[in-house]
């Protein structure tokens, strides 16, 4: 655990995972709002 206390170590791991979540959402194209209207 690199000398970190367990609670700090696991929060660090959670932080890393949280940082990747939006990237995964993008790569999976997971959030698609209603198709926008094309302006004439």
């Amino acid at each position: 655990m690199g000398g970190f206390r367990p609670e700090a170590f696991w929060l660090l791991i959670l932080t890393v995972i949280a940082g990747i979540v939006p990237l995964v959402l993008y790569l999976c194209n997971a959030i698609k709002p209603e198709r926008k209207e094309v302006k004439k």
Partner: protein
Amino acid sequence: MDVKLIFFIIYCLIILFVGYLGYRKTKTLGDFYLAGRQLNKWIAAGTFAGTFVSAITFVSWIGFGWRFGTAILPVYIFGCLIGYIVYAFVAPKLSMLADRNDIYTPSDFYERRFDSSFLRLWTTIFTIIGFTLYLGIQLIGTGVLFEVILGIPFIYGVIILGVVYTIYTLMGGMKSVAWTDAIQFSLFVIATLVAFAYVLPKVGGFSQMNASLAAIDVNLLTLNAGGAFKPLWIIGIGFAVTLVIPLHYGYMSRAMACKTPRDALGMVGIGSGILMVFYVAILVLALSARVLIPDVESISGLDKAFPTMVLEHFPVALGAFILVALGAAVMSTTDSILLQVGSNISNDIFKRYINKDADDKKTLSVARIFVIIFAVITIVFALTKPAALYLIYNFFIVFLVAPYVAIFFFGLFWKKATKAGALTSAIVGGGIGIFIQALQIAKVAPPSLSFHPTLYAVPVSVILMIVVSLASKQYPDEHVKKWF
């Protein structure tokens, strides 16, 4: 002349040139406010993340980590990354709605979603006050950096940087800001990673770094500074930091400036992925700073921890690179705020209340004039040099969160949110936030009100939004269809 100063001057000239290129491409008001809604995910990610990381990150956050150790993780860093997840769910819809309804500023959205001109005024006022505080502390952070690293007087540091970013923001609006931000973001991420790679072996790697910290003060390894911070205090700040990301006008505008909703999601995804790596480096830099400067009495304040480490423990060339990177971090935030305030005043006050018939050319001129006026005001504010920046940072967030939470999230995702619900939640939420903040500043807040003001304002405003909306008259279908 100091090599660091030469590096910095060359850098400023390059950035001004990029800003000039943005100026040549800026023809309309839409170009100035939102880069013609043509930002792709890469440039948008650069300006989104560049806007978020600032002098506060390097000066105040590292200073906080230097003083309180791994408590920086739950207090600041973790909340940010949760905020990016929240924003990932919001940004694509915001991008789509802004394009569909021809919205230029967040206050535009609030007025038109809830059909309330008062809401536009109320939200604009809160934003301008919040951003004045924010820009002021950014400049103070800059002045501290220049003073410690370059040895030039605080006042000159503030003025030099203030003039550079004001010029290019003035010229090209969002186009200049987005392009320069993307360059500046790349630069300070690289510099931070180089600093991380340099300092970690210097303190003996992770295990030795933590062992050294334990020898200095075992509380540095805890998440609550050895019990000095109550859980609700930590949660309050983390909660506020999380919410400020989707609610910050600068970030909302970036979603609106994206070419497509998918670009908006890409902006958050790419930005968040890179920032996560960046924040791990910031954590290590903060902890290493304490190992290298163990005596808290040896420097005059938390805000000087990082610049002191750079000056005393880094080689000159790396120090010069980091100074330029710090300037980049400062400018990529301050330019965005300056642009946002110029946009808000020209679009939401001048064109809405003072001269409704103003054409785009006139409104653009007003936006530029207010960019200058606001820049001067914040430089003067910065020169007053208030105390520890991280305290002010905690408070300015109230202005950017308290009135908006319910109207933003419910406005985007709840068809039944009404004008009465929106007005009640924005006024009471904002009022409670400011009132509790005032009690805390005056040091008369009872223990039960001693946590971050957003912790009280947000639940009340959300409950009011729900209850009042359900009890009041719903919008006709044609209004709801514009937003859902």
